[in-house]
């Protein structure tokens, strides 16, 4: 990989001081930082060709439309998607899930079963609970085990002819576990069940080819991938997206409107009602380009090195308990220190300039499983360094002393 200190020069925010000390940003699983190449692309849009897409005949609109559609092509190529129109721009992962969950209402009935896992983010639980409330379908849960992996044997026993869907994350946002999605998709498909994969945490850490893994739906957010907030995408196989009703009505998503009947536009526009987050989508494309320039293979191996270093150093501290010890995991470490409340640790670490996440991480069932109020979560990225990990460990030791 390119020298990490060279890479860091791309990220203006990493020079920031907190309390007169250098910022150590270890909350990348919540939001990754944005390189200047992406920021510049967004600035260019507002300075050079800010206008609405797909509508105007004028030059600015043509430029904006071209750049917007270029992002769709970048995402299509990066994620190994067969057809360009299978990429639907959304406001983020949650929006993508809700397009599917609300659209499935007419396809689901009271004898159906839907499967989620115990390690899902709330955004991959609540929309399905709402769907179940509306349709009387049953929601079933794949359990996790102590190391923080899915119990695949139990999953196999849960599959029966009533199971219509499996909704699963690629990577757990609170434990870091990488799930065996190829196996899950294969088992589900053999059972004639469709699979929606929540890629919010996976997409930033390794490359994935959606055609090869043959997943039915996939959702992700730009802001976890060095892109802007408020934008993401939904992938769905053409025939599945065509069978879903529109999520929102409005401009751009129609082919003709009369008061008698409105014809909807074809994919992808059927799901892109109204003026979208144009600069966000353009920035999203630039972010994928940026990460590909660094190289996902490089990112993956460097992040694994950071994960090992951080885990080893954390284990030196007396009273550390790490939650999520799966063999395959990304650079997320959830932990508690003695009996201290995670929010106490997070507050004091913040004073040392170290940004971590504390609490339940929108995964209350995981916290309930371990019977804890929450954890401190360190989530690393390719622009973090071992010396930052050393600063963090030093601050954590001081925090531990303060709390006594």
């Amino acid at each position, binding site marked *: 990989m390119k020298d990490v200190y060279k890479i860091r020069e791309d990220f203006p925010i990493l020079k920031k001081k907190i309390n007169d000390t250098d910022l150590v940003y270890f909350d990348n699983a919540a939001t990754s930082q944005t390189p200047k190449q992406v920021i510049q692309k967004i600035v260019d849009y507002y300075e050079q060709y800010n206008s609405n897409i797909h509508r105007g005949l004028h030059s600015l609109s043509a430029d904006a439309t071209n750049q917007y559609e270029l992002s769709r092509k970048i995402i299509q190529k990066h994620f190994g998607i067969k057809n360009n129109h299978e990429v639907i721009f959304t406001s983020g992962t949650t929006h993508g899930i809700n397009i599917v969950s609300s659209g499935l209402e007419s396809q689901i009935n009271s004898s159906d079963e839907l499967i989620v896992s115990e390690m899902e983010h709330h955004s991959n639980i609540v929309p399905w609970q709402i769907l179940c409330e509306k349709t009387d379908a049953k929601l079933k849960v794949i359990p996790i085990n102590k190391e923080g992996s899915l119990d695949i044997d139990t999953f196999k026993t849960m599959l029966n002819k009533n199971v219509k869907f499996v909704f699963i994350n690629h990577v757990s946002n609170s434990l870091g576990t990488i799930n065996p999605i190829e196996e899950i998709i294969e088992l589900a498909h053999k059972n004639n069940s469709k699979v929606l994969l929540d890629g919010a945490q996976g997409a930033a850490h390794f490359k994935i080819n959606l055609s090869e893994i043959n997943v039915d739906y996939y959702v992700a957010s730009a802001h976890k991938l060095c892109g802007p907030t408020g934008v993401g995408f939904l992938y769905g196989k053409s025939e599945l997206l065509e069978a879903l009703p529109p999520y929102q009505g409005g401009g751009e998503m129609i082919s003709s409107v009369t008061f008698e009947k409105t014809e909807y536009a074809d994919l992808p526009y059927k799901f892109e009602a109204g003026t979208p987050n144009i600069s966000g989508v353009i920035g999203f494309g630039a972010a994928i380009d940026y990460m590909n320039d660094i190289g996902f293979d490089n990112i993956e191996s460097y992040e694994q090195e950071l994960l090992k270093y951080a885990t080893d150093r954390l284990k030196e501290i007396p009273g550390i308990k790490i939650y999520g010890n799966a063999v395959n995991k990304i650079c997320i470490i959830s932990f508690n220190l003695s009996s201290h409340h995670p*929010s*106490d640790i997070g507050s004091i670490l*913040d*004073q040392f300039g170290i940004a971590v996440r504390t609490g339940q991480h929108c995964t209350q069932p995981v916290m309930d499983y371990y019977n804890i109020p929450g954890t401190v979560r360190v989530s690393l990225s390719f622009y973090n360094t071992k010396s930052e990990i050393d600063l963090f460990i030093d601050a954590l030791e001081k925090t531990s002393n303060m709390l006594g």
Partner: protein
Amino acid sequence: MENIESIQQEIINEFDFFDEWSEKYQYLIDLGKNLPTFNEINRVNENIVKGCQSNVWLHAEIIDDKIFYTADSDAIISKGIISILISVFSGQKPEDIITAKIDFIDKIGLSNHLSLTRANGLLAMVKQIKIYAMAYGSKK
């Protein structure tokens, strides 16, 4: 019993001694550790203060027209903050609590050092303290 204003001033004076954020935090932690034990009978859902990242329980009772607060939290810094709030409000008359102007939080320079979620939690605690006072005040 001193009035709310003079107790706040004492707290401000106390915090003036500290130059470093770490000393302020250490003081809060020590206050938290010394918070009187909470009566388990009062650890009920109705006493949970909504809007805090950690669990906070706040109980109020009226004795001789004055309100006495007890509280607990599973986080030690929250307990420290609670301890200060109790020293300000506990034993005061409902009408004084309702009308009290709370400015010590900004003046002790802690708001800069309390992340927003904590600051919101602190405001939620003050609000709950005042709600109890209003409830008792209206009963009178």
